[in-house]
């Protein structure tokens, strides 16, 4: 695909992965439903080997999202649901770390945070983040995520 990085977000959203198909020149990229990908030869995996870890269609979406949000190149992970995105981020925490969350955050997020903190996955503090500075004093000094 030609370099789109100096176009507006609107243009980049519309043109994400357009005309990137090498096989037939499909303008809209084809969908790759295959769960697995053949090795080129013995001990020679291609870019993608198994769809759980990587898939061309998912990768195109990830690149588009990262570009729109201004993330790092290759900086997005597409998950199965919004809650799995939250679950994924929580993997960065370990027991003893503290997460500060808005006291009125989405009910599903609240349920997950309460459930995991009860089991000792991390410490949980709810705060009103619309009040500037409310989060800072809640920090526990030993937290991995804080240090």
């Amino acid at each position, binding site marked *: 695909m030609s370099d789109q990085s100096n176009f507006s*977000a*609107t243009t980049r*959203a*519309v043109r*994400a992965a357009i005309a990137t198909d090498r096989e037939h020149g499909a303008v809209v990229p084809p*969908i*790759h439903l295959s769960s697995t990908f053949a090795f080129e030869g013995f001990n020679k995996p291609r870019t993608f080997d198994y*769809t*759980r*870890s990587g*898939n061309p*269609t*998912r990768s195109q*979406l*990830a690149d*588009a*999202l*990262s570009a*729109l*949000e*201004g*993330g*790092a190149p*290759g*900086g*997005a*992970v*597409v*998950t*199965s*649901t*919004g809650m*799995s*995105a*939250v*679950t*994924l*981020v929580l*993997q*960065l925490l370990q027991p003893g770390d*503290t*997460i*500060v969350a*808005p*006291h*009125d*955050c*989405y009910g599903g*997020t609240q349920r997950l945070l309460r459930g995991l903190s009860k089991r000792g996955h991390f410490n949980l503090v709810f705060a009103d*983040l*619309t009040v*500037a*500075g409310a*989060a*800072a004093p809640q*920090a526990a000094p030993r*937290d991995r*995520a*804080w*240090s």
Partner: protein
Amino acid sequence: MVLIETPSNPLLRITDIRAVAELAHAAGALVVADNTFLSPALQQPIALGADLVIHSTTKYLNGHSDVVGGAVVAADKSLADELAWWANCLGITGAPFDSYLTLRGVRTLHSRIRDHLASAEAVVEALCRHPAVSRVYYPGLATHPGHDIARAQQSGFGAMVSFEVHGGTRSVELLAANLRCFTLAESLGGVESLIAHPATMTHSSMDADARAVAGISDSLVRLSCGIESPEDLARDVTEALNEVLGARDWVLSASIQTSSETLAPRTQPLAPSPQPADVILLGAGAIGRELVRQLSDVPDDARPPLRVCGLIDRSGYVFAEGGFSRDRLAELRALKSAGQPLCEAIGGRPAPALHAVNEIARHQLSRPILVDATPADTHDVLLAALGAGLDVVLANKVPLAAEQQLVDRLHETARASGRRILNEATVGAGLPVIDTLRKLLEAGDEVLSIEGCPSGTLGFLFGELGRGEPFSVALGRAIALGYTEPDQRVDLSGLDVARKALILARAIGFRGELSDVQVESLVPAHLSAETGLAPAEFLRRAGELDALWATRVNDARRKGKVLRYRAHVTPGTIAVGLVAVKLTDPLGALHGTDNQFTFTTARYRARPLVITGPGAGPAVTAAGVFNDLLRLEASRERRSVTEYGDAIPA
């Protein structure tokens, strides 16, 4: 780790991403922002300092409510790699087919968002002006506590709108049943509009107390505005809310909810009332805003049959057929107080005042009244309004102090259209000066002269001088209290008093021009506005006049007198200027911003009729306008009763 959700769900509270990120980073924490409610088309948290952005792509990114998916975007590649490792390890990566559909949705993200915003704007406007709605939560409203932050960190206010309806769950149920373009369902961000009731749906897992703490009442409704026609959505909301209002028993149910079940309801269902008169306000300055406040503050059970349906300022206008809600008026007042033009309000349109009046007059209006609370020459606007069938109430002195032939034309146009022009607030602010004059004349009295101090500003100034204050200090104090015109020389030159005197004189038969008024100016010729001296420069040099005024005041004091600026009016003559009067004279006893008017008439000759009281400031001036509105309204009811009586065959 700090998790941010902004705007929040469902109350759309705004968090300052940059401020929280700075604090969190100072403490060494990662910042995660959930950007589901806006999408990257309207907010990019990474640019504001977030380390990670999470999404439910189910919402705006896919946008068609046919995929369940999510995403994490990292500012830093190594963090992304760690997350990708975990996603594979846990087995929570997205399916290819879902990814395909989501990417297809992303292509139209920006154009969909534009349409979503247009819908939200139309819906918010409809909600704000509907009397069945008690409160609207939308970051685009100037009254929203997070408005300024939202304006700074977002490029649009989003298409999620929450509001409260009068009457609790019953009203919500009625509303949902009557909406045709909003489907009762959870989720959001799709092309189709949805309505959710957080208390029984999205937030039902919270107990009632937790909901109360979070501010989620049983009356709260959340809308996801889709990309149907904005006009259809606004109409749908208005019509469904009309049904809620039409049921009327919400008044009853509201009172039962707040009291014990065994208590009898104290509030009766609303009785049908006549269609209120539509008030269109020209000028949204201090007086206009005060009038809106006074109209809004009247308790419901004493509410006069008046509703504000249009506001016009220099920039443009806002109009709501059927009148604005109290919340909407509060929001518009806040916008104007913050110095913003009406054309930038939600639903605001840029237009010159004449065009605005013509546009508004094209609508179906109920006995409309135009209030002129500007200080400008509005002659053409008033002619258009009278011609279009609007009655006129003036706080503005300029139109009635204009050239005689222009004033004649205003009255002729009013007569030809069967409309009236009332102007109590043009003289003596809220004091019943014009009203008294009218009553005297109607009863056949003959007004020989009117004498008095019709300037609260000059009254205040002379009070201060009398207490020994230097002229420049007294003037500064009058400015600080908001008593003066923007160029103080309009007060000091006697022009303001001359205009009021001319209006009074014309009311008792004087025909002539402002130039016929003998005016004694308090501004020396070399400092007058005619020399081109800027107002600021005049103020700087006001101290040059201190000695002169100290001498004048002291000379008067030695004779046991005080200085006053007086107007004297007869049907043939008008004079305004400085006089020295005894302390025992009614004029001498004035203090503060008091005005005084002494009517000498055929019937009140030996002991003239005197009206005294504060005559400056927005509160009393707006009250004068309010009284005129009520008088118009009352006289029209009489008129319509007469017409009805005439229609019945004897």
